[in-house]
């Protein structure tokens, strides 16, 4: 009986027989499904190899690099209390997005770990709740910008392959910035709901009710009257210049 069940077993998954396998990530296991050495078949578990997970050095050059940037200048202040992650709006949706841990990895120059988060590192929505809560005024929200710069510089291939820029969203964003010098949150919200096919919700009890309230107390009209920022013409030229520059760099 027992033998029959064994015969039915599928081909072993990578490192399947390792006790407490969940503690070891896939990258750390080397296992050939079919391997013959000197005529001896050592397929499967016989050639399993676990790479050392020991971190052999702290790289502070990376810390210094981040510290020199405007957005990352306060990296030295972080004492890892976790207030940023606790207050983050993104973390509940993307469990792997952990600002506290990202800052720590940047402090110790742990590129190996950072690399694993290329896909989620850009998820910061810039609500600045973390920066408001941070007891040391690290400004984690901007630290996430520093992180994005790092990702782009050190892992260009991963960023290219794992991140797809949504052209529609990019256009909406750019039009708003270049046209008005500000983000119009209402417009942004409507376009995102439209994109998700949830336009109906915009007029339901909760959202529609909120709009009605804002019309009543006048906030809706003040939003429409938003002027352009002071000295906008100059700023606009600078932004356009920058975008053009970035564009040429990327094309090269």
């Amino acid at each position: 009986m027992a033998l029959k069940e064994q015969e039915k077993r599928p081909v072993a998954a990578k490192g399947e027989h390792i006790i407490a396998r969940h503690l070891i990530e896939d990258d750390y296991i080397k296992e050939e499904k079919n391997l013959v050495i000197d005529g001896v078949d050592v397929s499967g578990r016989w050639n399993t190899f676990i790479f050392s997970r020991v971190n052999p050095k702290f790289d502070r050059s990376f810390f210094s690099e981040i510290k020199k940037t405007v957005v990352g200048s306060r990296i030295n202040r972080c004492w890892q209390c976790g207030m940023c992650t606790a207050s983050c709006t993104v973390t509940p949706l993307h469990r792997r997005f952990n600002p506290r841990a990202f800052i720590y990895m940047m402090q110790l120059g742990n590129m190996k770990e950072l690399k694993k988060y290329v896909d989620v590192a850009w998820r910061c929505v810039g609500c600045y709740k973390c920066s408001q809560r941070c007891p040391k005024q690290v400004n984690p929200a901007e630290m996430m910008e520093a992180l994005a710069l790092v990702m782009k510089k050190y892992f260009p291939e991963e960023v290219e392959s794992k991140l797809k820029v949504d052209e529609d969203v990019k256009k909406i964003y750019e039009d708003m910035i270049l046209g008005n010098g500000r983000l119009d949150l209402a417009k942004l919200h409507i376009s995102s709901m439209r994109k998700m096919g949830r336009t109906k919700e915009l007029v339901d009890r909760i959202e529609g009710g909120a709009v009605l309230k804002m019309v009543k107390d006048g906030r809706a009209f003040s939003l429409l009257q938003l002027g352009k920022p002071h000295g906008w013409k100059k700023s606009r030229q600078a932004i356009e210049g920058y975008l053009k520059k970035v564009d040429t760099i990327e094309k090269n």
Partner: protein
Amino acid sequence: MAENILVVGGGPAGLHSAVTLADIGANVSLVERDSFLGGNPKKFKYKFLFPDMQPADDVIGELIKRAEKNDGVKIYYSSNVSNFKENEKKFDVTIKSPDASETKTFDSVIVATGFEHFDPARDAKYSYQLFDDVIDIKDLERMMGENNFVRPSNGQPPKNVAFILCVGSRDRHVGNQYCSRVCCTVSVKQAIELRERFPDCDAYIFYMDIRTYGFFEDLYWKAMEEHDVQIVKGRIAEITSGPNNTVICKGEDTLLRGPFEIPFDMVVLASGMEGGPQSSEMVDKLGLELNEHGFLKPQNVTLAPFKSNRKGIFLAGACTGPKAISDSIVEGGAAAMDAYIYAVKNK
């Protein structure tokens, strides 16, 4: 006739209580086991004191000067209490000096025998005294004091230094479960001094909790924000020798999970405080009690922190538990008050 009061121990607490008592008119006999006054801060040549980086000489030197200049304080160097007997609420005490032995009657006694630095060699995992580049905070304090801070192994300035907290404290394995209170602050202070002296040298602090209580927190913030001292959460379980004349700290990064083995040029162990053999000596000779941590036990830690279990004998300073120098000085004054009241009441 003036009150006769005995002070045992010439550290910060003993010195301050002796001078205070002499100032209010008592005859004080100060018994010091070493040939100099100033206690551990003097013995191990502390250079700068936290929290304000005051030169230790300005504090300890000043206390010593006050005691030496005061006519009401008779100092017995290299001496100890050889015989102690209670006699109708007074105490007959024999003070043994190298050249003589003197018996006097005292109205009250202050015990300010202080602490001993934990000897990290007792905890083998830290390889103290095995590798030259593993030192502890008192060694570093001395090296800084002598303006001779280099790697002991080759005389070169270090490129990266690790500070390890809670050595000999909060560790059942070595028998000390308590927190020694000052080592965190001393370590961040030393990290700042290190970074000031060698801006190219990285400083890391391995911690479980950083307990820079009260305003000492300012130093901790300063170390991080102005001197880029990096804190890493995890205790070091092993120190071994590494390549290129380095020492490897093996620990776990408890914030990210996962072990690390990092080579350092130098490791500084934040060794804690212990009651030392002098506490047991006081128990044997004066009939005092020890608490479960090896320090002298006050009658009531909250209500009568300076009274011992025996009437007429008072406690001050680090003999009752780990303490900062400032706290010891405060306690010296407070115990002096208690001792004086007892002496006056029983005349």
